[in-house]
């Protein structure tokens, strides 16, 4: 049987290597930890994937017949899938708030604070893990889309650019949900707070229906809010044709970067203040 040397080090250990190296290492360790946890609760990943699949089936086969894309020659399923991708990754950002609230509640963050690790790695690792998870979920949703008739009508490269843009947006959103997770008393509350924010953003948007079909007062919101811009950017890149819009692609990038610039410092500040 192995035993450990219990003798304390006489002088505090100083880690060899550059600070940046250890910052990246800390973020990687935290990301790894969150991803391993994900594989240990496969049912949560299963249900996280099941829900968007239900949305696909619901809109494709139940509501879809009654919704006009407004663009001749574009089928509803092609219109729908970029919207589903964006909605799914936005909903995925909720796991950032739930995960952090859970760590806080269980006292794990206390342990992390007393370790010589980089302070930002807790948030960095959490959001990065959720980003990886979203990559996985978008891949699955693309497969599901293909099964129900979705086709990329531009090319695979532009589709990938579209995926990168919507993942970047979801990543930015994650930092916002990190703030919610850090201020919620527990994981359940974090989840309950998150949905009233996500529902109007994802449904009062261009994700499922053309904005032009909405009443005028709602159009004003639905046209300019970030989820619509990102959905329109994704359509531009994945469908092209009448949806081609460089303005929306740039707009989506601007929204994502703008949100990051605001939300990252906000989340870091919240993390420092949360004790």
């Amino acid at each position: 049987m192995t035993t450990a040397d219990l003798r304390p080090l006489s002088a505090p250990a100083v880690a060899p290597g550059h600070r940046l190296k250890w910052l990246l290492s800390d973020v990687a360790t935290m990301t790894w930890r969150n991803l391993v946890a994900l594989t240990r609760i496969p049912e949560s990943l299963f249900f996280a994937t099941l829900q968007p699949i239900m949305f696909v089936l619901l809109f494709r086969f139940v509501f879809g017949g009654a919704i006009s894309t407004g663009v001749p020659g574009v089928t509803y399923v092609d219109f729908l899938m970029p919207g589903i991708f964006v909605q799914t990754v936005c909903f995925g950002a909720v796991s950032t708030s739930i995960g952090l609230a859970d760590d806080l509640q269980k006292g794990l963050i206390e342990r992390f604070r007393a370790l010589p690790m980089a302070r930002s790695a807790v948030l960095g690792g959490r959001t990065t893990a959720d980003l990886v998870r979203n990559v996985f979920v978008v891949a699955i949703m693309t497969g599901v889309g293909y099964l129900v008739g979705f086709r990329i009508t531009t090319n695979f490269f532009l589709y990938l650019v579209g995926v990168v843009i919507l993942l970047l947006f979801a990543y930015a959103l994650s930092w916002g949900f990190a703030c919610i997770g850090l201020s919620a008393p527990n994981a359940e509350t974090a989840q309950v707070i998150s949905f009233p924010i996500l529902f109007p953003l994802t449904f009062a948007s261009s994700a499922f229906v053309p904005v032009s079909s909405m009443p005028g007062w709602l159009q004003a919101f639905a046209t300019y809010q970030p989820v619509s811009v990102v959905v329109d950017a994704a359509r531009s890149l994945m469908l092209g044709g009448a949806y081609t819009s460089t303005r929306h692609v740039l707009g989506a990038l601007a929204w994502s970067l703008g949100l990051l610039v605001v939300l990252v410092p906000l989340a870091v500040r919240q993390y420092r203040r949360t004790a």
Partner: protein
Amino acid sequence: MNEPGAVVARDLVKVFAKGSVRALDGLSFEVEAGTVFGLLGPNGSGKTTAVRILSTILTPDEGSASILGNDVVKRAAVVRRSIGLAGQYATVDENLTGHENLRMVGRLSHLEKKAASTRADELLGQFGLADAANRTLKTYSGGMRRRLDLAAALVGRPPVLFLDEPTTGLDPQSRQDLWVVIEQLVGVGTTVLLTTQYLEEADRLAHQLLVIDHGKAIAEGTPAELKATLGTTVVSVTFADSATAERAVGLLDPLVAGSPILDGNSVDLTVEAGPKVAAEALRTLDQHQVEVAGLALREPSLDDVFLSLTGHRSEGLEFDEPEQGGDHKAAPTPGYIGFDENLAGR
């Protein structure tokens, strides 16, 4: 002057905004290197707040603190390399295995991959968790989690260890096991700051004790010194009901230097000459026709110290969890001298 302690706290003040609670109200103490220092106090007395400041989790509103000469605020990064923290709530990741948890802490303590993995193996062996190394923590018992939590605190081989109520909620056997490990650690030179509500634990482990209440120090000394301040014997007289006990307080008051302490049905007198005072007490009560249900002489416990210093019992987990404690105040302790119900009817 001696060299400064391994842990130094100076006039620490911490006010929590919500409800403007002064969690710490000018707390100062010093821990000599290589010893166990016990912070003793009831729930909400400020013990955990003190530990969180010393372990750089919180910053103090006033005052300062240092670990091995490094200020906990200005040199927090250095302090974090020299401390280990094991908490009241085993702070380990439930979804990871024991080995993964320790490896994670190792990596976050900036050990290289291989070193982190080796250290994890060693500690799991040391704490009797080798067989459970590759099981997720969901399958661990409470005692196993605490051991893993302590192991996690030791990954970086810290010279200073903070143990915040390390055995709260554990069964007696697991507590004993943890005590043995803590003694081992101190034996090889670790400085330990221990907070506890268990007086028995403080008595057994701590070289020096600081009793705190409402964020302030109210007494300091070795366990023996604190007990000595109270006299050498506690005469505990029990009555049939609390009304009788209340009546007896007035009658017994002249027999003690301090004042008798009423606790439900019984009255405690802390005195030098136990047997003599006991006899006098019975005589006095007999004269006033107050019926005595029981009488015991015992050495003062730290609970008595606490009671006499704060005016209230160390109310809290010890009495909330009788199924786990096994050290209830009423139980005979090693200092138990004698109990004879027939004395009353003498």
